[in-house]
């Protein structure tokens, strides 16, 4: 388990992170196949209004949007076509946990 990355300091490129495993209903942009998977911060993009609220016309809080890079082998385990291929996706800060040092690669 890691520490949620909601803190104000932006995560540095290369930081080891895990996508949270919540299953809320609604307009969620963190794809299910990446939840619970570990990757690294590829870049911090910018703060964007949270689509989970925006989609319903609710007042939306801004969250930092990151691009997170995952090894195919870490996402699909033995089923990966080529474990060293990469998947990169945009993930909002409130879906990201910073990995504890003991878990970081």
């Amino acid at each position: 388990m890691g520490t949620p990355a909601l803190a104000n300091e932006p995560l540095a490129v290369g930081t080891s992170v895990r996508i949270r495993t919540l299953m809320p209903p609604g307009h969620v942009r963190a794809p299910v196949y990446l939840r619970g998977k570990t990757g690294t911060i590829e870049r911090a993009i910018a703060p964007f209004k949270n689509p989970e609220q925006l989609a319903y016309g609710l007042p939306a809080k801004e969250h930092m949007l990151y691009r997170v890079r995952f090894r195919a082998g870490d996402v699909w385990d033995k089923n990966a076509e080529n474990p060293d291929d990469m998947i990169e996706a945009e993930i909002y800060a409130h879906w990201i946990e910073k990995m504890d040092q003991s878990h970081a690669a």
Partner: protein
Amino acid sequence: MPHDHHDHLSPSGHPYRADDDTPLSYWQTMEIAVRELLVEKDITTAEEINAQIDAMDARSPAIGAAVVARAWCDPEFKIRLLADASAASREMGFDIGPMHLIALENTANTHNIVVCTLCSCYPRNLLGLPPDWYKSRAYRSRAVVEPRKVLSEFGLTLPDEMQVRVHDSTADMRYIVVPAQPEGSFGQTEEELAAWITRDSMIGVGLPQAPQ
């Protein structure tokens, strides 16, 4: 992979398209009601709506091809494009609206491919409307699981040493692949080069092709 096949052709050779003899869906009814209300209340006009549809239809992969061709010809522009693709596209005079764009460079050892697993996010202002297969469940689910198999079905078989990077447009960014310039095209003008750059090469499911 579902290329734009037309399996069923009419005797005159046109693809069949079923007549839309079905009742309007809830959302179609809603769209018509909202549109008519906006016109009735003078918030917009039928002409404005039509002009916007024409503007959307006028966008084509030629815009993206012009951007990539510039990057092939002008190393300084390529640096700016990779740093901020929205700003670089605007610099060329393209109206890309509020789109947040990231350009992904194919290199000798990296191949990029773009998908939107959650819906059908696509850089429409640069490439026009997405092809039907881009919106299909098959492409959206398989591109992240078995990208090499999907690419081989598009006729692109990559060596094991080349790393495949799949970019899932999950949120606010849109993506364009900057394919590597083919050897046969060196020395050509920017305008000539643009003809090599196919829509598929900017999605990452193809490579630039010599113009026919």
